[in-house]
């Protein structure tokens, strides 16, 4: 097995794993039962999305994808924090 083949198999496995993670998070989102569960599910989906974008970048060999991943990683937590603050305090900027 050449390294390239190995890489492509690894990428496919990673993708399927991440996609499974997404689907499972989605199921958690649907089940709930509390808002905290749903926010955590959404946050996990964001993290899985970062992984998906990076793996896509490796797969297609495009560097710019990593910057998209960087952006999601850097700012994705902001919406999670905002949602969490909302259920805690109601007012996200006080």
């Amino acid at each position, binding site marked *: 097995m050449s390294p390239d083949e190995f890489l492509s198999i690894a990428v496919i496995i990673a*993708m*399927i794993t*991440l*996609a*499974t993670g*997404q*689907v499972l998070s*989605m199921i958690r*989102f*649907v089940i709930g039962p509390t*808002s905290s569960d*749903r*926010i955590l599910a*959404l946050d996990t*989906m*964001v993290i899985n*999305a970062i992984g*998906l*974008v990076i793996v*896509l970048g490796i797969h*297609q060999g*495009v560097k*710019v*994808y990593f*910057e*998209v991943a*960087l*952006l*999601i990683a*850097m*700012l*994705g937590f*902001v*919406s999670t*924090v*905002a*949602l969490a*603050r*909302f*259920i*805690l*305090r*109601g*007012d*996200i*900027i*006080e």
Partner: protein
Amino acid sequence: MSLFFIVALPFLGALLPGVMNAAGRAACAGVTFVVTLMAFVGLLTNLPAVLAGQVVTARIDWMPQLGLNFTLMLDGLGFFFAFLILGIGLLIIAYGRHYLSRNDNMGEFFTYLLLFQGAMVGIVLSDNILLLLVFWELTSLSSFLLIGYWKHLPEGRQGARMALAVTGMGGLAMIGGLMMLGQIAGSYELSVILQNREAIQADPLYTPALLLILLGCFTKSAQFPFHFWLPHAMAAPTPVSAYLHSATMVKAGIFLMARLWPVLSGTPEWFVIVTTAGLVTMVLGAVIALFKHDLKALLAFSTVSHLGLITMLLGTGTAFGVFAAVFHILNHATFKAALFMSAGIVDHEAKTRDIRQLGGLRHLMPVTFVIATIAALSMAGIPLLNGFLSKEMMLEATTKTVLFDIWWLVPALATFGSLMSAAYCFRFIGHTFLGPRRDDYPAQPHDPNPGMWMPPAILVVLVIVIGIAPALAEPFVKLVTNAVLGTAAEVPDKHIKIWHGLIPALYMSIVAIIGGLFVMAVFKPLLRFWESRARPEAKPMFEGFVEGIAVIARFVTHRLHNGAFTRYAMIGFVTIVAAGYHAWVTGTVGDATRAMQQVGPVPIAGWAMLVAATCGLVILHRNRFLALMMIGIVGLMVSVGFVYFSAPDLAMTQFTVEVVTIILLLLALNFLPKGTPIESTPLRRVRDASVAIIGGLATFALAFHYMLRDAVTTPISEFHLANSYKGGGGTNVVNVILVDFRGFDTYGEIIVLGIAALLIYALTETLLDGPVRRKLLNRVPDQPRAGDMHPMMMVVLTRVTMPVVLLVGFYIFLRGHNEPGGGFISGLIVSIAVVMQYMASGFHWASDRLRYPYHGVIGAGVLIAGLTGIGSWFVTKPFLTSDFTYVRIPPFNEFELATAALFDLGVFLAVVGAVMLSLESFSRLARRANVEDSEYPMDIDPSRDDPPDARADAPTGGG
């Protein structure tokens, strides 16, 4: 002087009166006078050339592709009107200086007056009919301002609105007419159009063009049935009435008829429409004028009548008619402006214009009496005054005019009109100045200072000079007539004489004057008869008409635009689907040219989640918080989808917009109920659902068909791809489109963005200033509150992240021209970095550290973008032409500098300012009275040594 200066001087000079306002009334009027005088002298310098029969021209290409060029020409006709406009303008300015009271804002008045003057000179000197249209509309607008100058008078405001509505409507019609004329002639230059008489009159578009142009002329010159606005415009200050509504603006329609006379006249359509309208206007105006008690209304209707007379003369289509018309325009301008100014003097001194309260003023105001009497007698057609000469020429012209095959119709009506005209002139003199002196005037009338009576006196001298020695005016009148006739006809070989011998016109004149005296003798019973009859009143009819249109507009608007988004979405979708269905049924669809692509399990999973989240959103949308989280999922999946389809810049934009949206909606949700109640009936929901499903399926069908086929024509993206680097210096096509190809659109968009943000700010400020303020401040949170306000962990995290995020934003901004990124995305990124600080340490803490207000940031952005665009003017390139170059500063590698980056900086600043201003405005609303603002970045800080219970909003008070 170049024609450009003559037209430009009043416009440029319009800046001065406002500035000179503080320097006093004399300075203000003086500077206006000097500006007009300069333009007037400039006009006179062109007199020798005009007298020599030349046509002075000036030309600058403006938009040659559209046929719109700044071309001016000065021939006899143009000179004549410009001379009237500027010459009478000088007198009016001198008169207005003394007429306006100390409470009136003189700077404002003279600014409007100069704007009007410039527009008017522009009309008469334009060679290009599109340019003429521009000036034409400008006169409507500036006259609106002038009529409504006394803003405290409702009549003034209503009169101004009516004048604008009527003349504006005519202007619209005229745009169509002149465009047709230009299309027929193949050029918008008058000099070309005037040479194409046969081609234009033979064209099938001649009749519609003629009707539309005449609609414009008739509304402007107050011809029947559009005569009603002019008397209502008399609510204006008298200098305005004298200037606009007797001497200049109302003659604009006549000017245009004269200007286009060579190509439009001579056909049966022209003859019947113009002559009939003129004749009806003349008789109707004269009859109404006789029974008006307001001096200015009397003069207004007499103006209507005289304009009708001139129109009728132009309508005859004979060279002699034009000759008489030109002469009467000159005479009417002299005596009518003098009359208006006299009426203004009476109004000014006696404090009333009601003729029933006047009489006997000859003893108190001898100078005004002489001036007004001479002018009125001239209007009545008394020999040895100029009005007699042109009126007799008019009567002579009518004897040769046969309308509807009745030989006596036109002469009889013209004689009747002259008779009524003489009668109202006699009434004007008799009831104002003659008769016994009264002692119940509202004020003590006396002659005004010379500043007020000199201007009309100068005009009256002209009235007499022309009246006694018409030979002096004859060469000039013939010159103008020649300019009107052009190549269409020869100037008639007749002379203006006081005595023509015993011709029919003389008898008609005699009948008119004696009849006028007779009417005066039986005036009282006539008036009783007149007032006992019901007459149609123009104002209620006009207002009813406007109200009717408003009702229709409101009905349509409320149907289409009822404030519910669902309504707009439904209308939009139904229309698009119907149009698409029509295209599908009537058109043809080619075979698929592309094969379906294979899809792996991962994209399928992503797609399934997207669909699931969307369906969940639809089902659960009544729980607003849950719906918001669903939107988060949809946004995330769409972002990943964009990456999958190789559009990383879209993914970045989508994701940052998503974050900002969630923050914004959460801020709003704080004030809203957490659930959406069911408001519509089940039937309505079924309807909405079916529209939504049909719309969705149609969109799918369209996308499916489109993606399987090649485009029919070359898509514009080919051009963008080919020219992005070559022309714009960037390899990121999206960014080059935004800042270069479509830079002007982007410029407009950032302005809209800024306006939207400022509007949100203004709305919240209004709320906080109003009665809602108390309610907002004492609001009790609708859910229990837990935890601390400003947790340490979040504060530390956001502080650490901030420089990193800013660096990324800076990086993405800089390289945006060549790779995904740019001002918009980096603006969003930086905004999120700042919002994080607001969330972590609170509104108060963050606002304290704000150095530049967000309004300023928006303004700076728009300004930088605009200045970048203007910069290209200095190298004589169109607005927003971008340029780029490569420089090398050791030790760096060679890099690119593009003006587009500056423009992008403007976009960046506008986005940051707009996002932050709207978020800040929302969170400003959420301030509460019983929560103290913390000065510290976080609530629990080990490095602080103040006792914990003194800290703001300790967890105990949270619930």
